[in-house]
């Protein structure tokens, strides 16, 4: 009985350590209606996610799967720039996370997120 309880204890300690949340660390920049944090003064790659699912990189409408290639190209041109993802208030989080993921795959780790009221 005691052995059993001790085993249970060890088991729960181990599983509790393994249950780790995974996430994307992002910064926050002000914009639109919610302007709490100040943006950085350095330049950045601008990406806009619209409510209807359109993604705009560098003023061109692109597919979600093309975000990575575009970011890679811009990153090669301006290696010190971070990325600024501005999402519409009504845009879906799934798409936003997908875009952030693509940006990070494209080599830009410094991603900040903001919203616009459009």
């Amino acid at each position: 009985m005691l052995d059993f309880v001790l085993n249970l204890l060890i088991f729960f300690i181990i599983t509790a350590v393994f249950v780790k949340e995974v996430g994307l660390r992002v910064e926050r920049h002000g914009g639109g209606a919610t302007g709490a944090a100040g943006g950085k003064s350095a330049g950045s790659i601008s990406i806009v996610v619209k409510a209807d699912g359109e993604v705009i990189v560098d003023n061109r409408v692109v597919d979600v799967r093309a975000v990575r290639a575009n970011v890679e190209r811009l990153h090669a041109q301006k290696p010190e720039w971070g990325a600024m993802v501005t999402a519409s208030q009504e845009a879906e989080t799934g798409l936003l996370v997908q875009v952030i993921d693509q940006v990070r795959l494209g080599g830009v780790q410094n991603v900040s997120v903001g919203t616009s009221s459009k």
Partner: protein
Amino acid sequence: MRSRRHASHEGEDTGIDLAPMLDFVFNLLIFFLITTSFVREAGITVVRPEATTALPEQTGNILVALRPNGEIWMDRRQVDMREVRPTIERLHLERPEDTVIVIADKAAKAGLLAQVMDEIKLGGIKEVAVGATSAAGQ
């Protein structure tokens, strides 16, 4: 004499050994101490977005969940947008090294996510991550 020996033998048998029970209770105590202080669960399940570059957050022990209908859940109960900041402040005081993971549903609105992230920052925790699942097979 025989009956007396029998009686004394019975007397020894009826004494209860408390040591195993104490061990047991002690283990239970340790178990509950450990499980309660680990992760501040959000209390609901959400459909997480998939991301290939998602990394495990070692200190991400405070979870805030956002549902598609705009509900915010933290610490196993539904909270109002105005409650997020005081709750974060309280949890930040209890364990200052903890960071927050906002687990937003795939269909939740980005505006709500941004608003919650602002409230968390105002609550004193600067490091906020957006929850995701690692995309399978990558």
